[in-house]
């Protein structure tokens, strides 16, 4: 029997000027989610159930960019995506383009358990959700006032960034949005809503699992798929470890970041911490991203090359940590 471990994240790429009370709010939510996960582990729920449970909680709370509180597309709508993977048999499920499903991660779980496929998207995924009887809500439910304001800022910032006659930084028009030269996914970081929530768990049987959920990128094109639902990019779990990533989706996809952590463990023989460091250092070209990971031995690790990542982790021996920077 091994030791359990759990880690959660609420996205990488945090505005350095984020007000203290928002930081505290985020930490409280991460702590609450960790505690939900810990109780589930203590009552012997398998890792796959724990990651689903924790990500549901993160989706339901409007604070982070997933489920309620999701970032908006260029049309002002919400299109959510999620994936989940069970290490022992590498079974997996993913969904994209959801507009009415309250908890995308649970639909991903149903795709894994109840369909012959691994990945369903858009109207087909919505139809499957109705047939499975999962909780549906109006698209309005997901849209927060904060995000409507952010979309407006994103559009202003983009219109400046795409106009090459005007220097990108420090010009008038976009106001606060342009104060920071830091960018994520092509947006000034003060406009960028941290992408993605995720959870990785190893239970005391040594089973690893990972789940990731997101509203995607603020001002994204309709139909855009990011890294979160892509097995091997945003989410991966196998016998050795479970990994969930966040950050610049396109950089994560190009480097198949989640699988990469497992691959250097499997083929190079590195341990979890070495693997996470190696991948963050060597695999992200110019991209910015972060990840959380657990190994079958009960180790937990996180790594990021962004200005911050909302994250928390806990292990069976009583260690618990919640941080942003």
């Amino acid at each position, binding site marked *: 029997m091994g030791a359990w471990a759990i880690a959660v994240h609420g996205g990488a790429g945090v505005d350095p000027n984020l007000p203290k009370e928002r930081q505290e709010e985020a930490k409280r939510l991460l702590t609450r989610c960790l505690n939900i996960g810990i109780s589930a582990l203590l009552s012997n729920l398998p890792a796959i159930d724990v990651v689903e449970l924790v990500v549901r909680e993160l989706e339901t709370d409007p604070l982070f960019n997933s489920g309620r509180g999701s970032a908006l597309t260029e049309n002002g709508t919400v299109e959510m995506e999620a994936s989940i993977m069970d290490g022992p048999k590498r079974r997996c499920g993913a969904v994209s383009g959801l507009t009415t499903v309250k908890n995308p991660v649970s639909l991903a779980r149903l795709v894994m358990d109840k369909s*012959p496929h691994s990945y369903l998207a858009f109207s087909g995924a919505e139809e499957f959700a109705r047939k499975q009887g999962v909780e549906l809500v109006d698209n309005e439910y997901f849209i927060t006032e904060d995000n409507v304001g952010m979309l407006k800022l994103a559009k202003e910032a983009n219109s400046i960034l795409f106009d090459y006659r005007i220097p990108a930084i420090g010009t008038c028009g976009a106001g606060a949005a342009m104060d920071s030269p830091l960018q994520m996914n092509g947006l000034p970081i003060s406009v960028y809503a941290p992408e993605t929530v995720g959870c990785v768990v190893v239970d005391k049987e040594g089973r690893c699992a990972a789940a990731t959920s997101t509203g995607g990128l603020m001002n994204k094109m*309709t139909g855009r798929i990011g890294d979160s639902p892509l097995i091997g*990019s945003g989410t991966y779990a196998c016998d050795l470890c479970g990994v969930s990533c966040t950050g610049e989706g396109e950089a994560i996809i*190009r480097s*198949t970041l989640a699988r990469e952590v497992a691959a250097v463990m499997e083929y*190079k023989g590195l341990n979890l911490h070495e693997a996470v460091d190696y991948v963050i250092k060597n695999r992200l*070209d110019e991209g910015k991203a972060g990840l959380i990971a657990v190994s079958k031995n009960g180790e937990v690790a996180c790594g990021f090359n962004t200005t911050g990542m909302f994250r928390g982790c806990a292990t069976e021996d009583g260690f618990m940590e919640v941080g942003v920077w």
Partner: protein
Amino acid sequence: MGWAIALHGGAGDIPLSLPSDRRLPREAGLRHCLDVGIAALKAHKHPLDVVELVVRELENHPHFNAGKGSVLTTSGTVEMEACIMDGKTKKCGAVSGLSTVVNAISLARTVMEKTPHIYLAFDGAEAFAREQGLETVDPSYFVTPENIERLKQAQEANRVQIDYTQPIQKEVKKDDAIGDGDSQIGTVGCVAVDNEGNLASATSTGGLVNKMVGRIGDTPIIGAGTYANHLCAVSATGKGELIIRGTVARDVAAVMEFKGVSLKEAAAYVVGQVPPGNVGLVAVSSTGEVTMPFNTTGMFRACATEDGYSEIAIWDSPSK
């Protein structure tokens, strides 16, 4: 060092008794596409252009499951997907859920070059295709009588599998159930390397016969059906769900890189990790090696290298 190219038209349970009226047009198609690719490489086209060009030809060929000739969803519609990746820059583009775009692979290329994103799907992808002026047609263009018949047979054989109220029988033999057995889980793909070691990979498919509407397979998923980096380019085909789980295309590159083995060894190892009967792939390395392993009965495939070697085959030994 030298250029090399490999392409496939799907792996699966292709019966050795495949009638010649089904075999010959596909062999001719493979030969034609191989010639197109070789000519492009000889004309010093970039591998990214070569794989796009070859996959467009394969998409236009009605006997392969991509573009015209795509298999049908459970609703009788076509939902195509494709993916392209450049080795050196690892830039990539992918599309899913297309119903009117003549050449899905060219839309994937356009997503890679003309959007800040990598992957567009369904209505958003269709709208983008129109905005970019790609050729579109009525969805009926893609539907062949053969595929209407295939869907009918699949639905008769698989009723239980698509009825969610029943317990799932995970390993229902969906291939064996279908009479002619050829290419119903097909996909087309091409990988190429030029004599400067530039690599590219492209894959395109209509997906799985009788698939659920909205189903995404391995083809458009970077690292699963398609992958290229500085070491090699890989395009996989077979049971999508297992290829996703095994991150098959990425793993060939990872095994080469982290274990320091040759392309052939890496590809053979990765194919061996997938349960028998489920996967095939074509791959080339930056040094001009080429390999085409599969653990299915057969795989429609072809390859050529600069030193004059060329092969067109379906089963284990090259067919006549």
